[in-house]
């Protein structure tokens, strides 16, 4: 079983919010920057890869019970986004990697555990 903590460790991700919730298992992943699409397609336990930083991403993650949000391209979430993540208990991660590279690395890791 891969956890969010494994992901953070393996790829050296920044934990912006939710350091106490990294033990949740990772069931899959979804990459998209359209929140309407994520609301329709992402499933519970996914890590969501995006460059969106608006506070609505937290509500989407919470609604879909996602394991974590990974913000790529070194994007900085707005202060309200971080506040909202903290009150909703959503794990917010960051990386300077570009989306494709982040997805590729994640895919490899998950393939190892037959999650994709």
């Amino acid at each position, binding site marked *: 079983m891969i956890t969010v903590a494994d992901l953070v460790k393996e790829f050296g991700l920044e934990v912006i919010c939710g350091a106490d919730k990294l033990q949740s298992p990772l069931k899959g992943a979804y990459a998209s*920057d*359209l*929140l*309407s*699409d*994520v*609301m329709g397609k992402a499933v519970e336990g996914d890590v969501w890869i995006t460059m*969106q*930083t*608006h*506070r*609505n991403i937290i*509500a*989407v993650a919470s609604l879909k019970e996602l394991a974590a949000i990974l913000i790529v391209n070194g994007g900085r979430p*707005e202060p*309200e986004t971080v506040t909202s993540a903290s009150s909703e208990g959503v794990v917010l991660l960051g990386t300077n990697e570009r989306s494709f590279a982040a997805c590729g690395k994640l895919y490899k890791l998950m393939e190892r555990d037959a999650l994709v």
Partner: protein
Amino acid sequence: MSPVNIIRQAMEKNLDIIAITDHNSTKHCRSAQQIAGKYGITVIAGAELNTKEEIHCLAFFENITRADQFQQYIDDNLTVIPNKAEIYGHQYLVDENEDILDEEDRLLVAALRTGIEDVITEVHRLEGLVVPAHINRMYNGLYSQLGFLPAGLMADALELDRRAGNDGFFQKHPEIGRYPLLRNSDAHSLQQIGTASTEYWLESPVFSEIRQVLSGDWNNRIKSI
């Protein structure tokens, strides 16, 4: 779509008020307003902004000074991608005689580096009005980009795509009824001018009255057609 042609077409369609809202630019508003003075039509200065979230958002200003001040914000925050005229066309700035004054070399359909809330704050600082555009569209609309209406969004109104109407959007999202709902033609060609519009009950066709309607008892004073 030069300013003079736009205004002639608007007169033809019996419009009393139009707004010039180029993508990420307010630079055509001045010449359009100069021409409008001669024809007796009101031209509101504005822009259609593309926020960091790629939400298209209309901004309207009381006068050219305010629009110019907002241009500075665009210049400070636009992601600079050189325009390729062979793909996107020339981005000429023309005057009232259709003489070319300048060519914008930054791609104007690019996005700003600032998010929707930041854009709203800046437009309001300059006493302008902000209206998220074509919110029911599957791309570049508030709902496609952000999934749902953010709580407490300080928009002055919401705009529905001119092609909308029977798509059940309002039934699905009754929360949009908290805001005045506008329909505009979003004309990208002369032929599209006047294909949708909103009627406002005003004492006179001026920006301050529109602001008053949108911030007050708008329910009985606007009608989308």
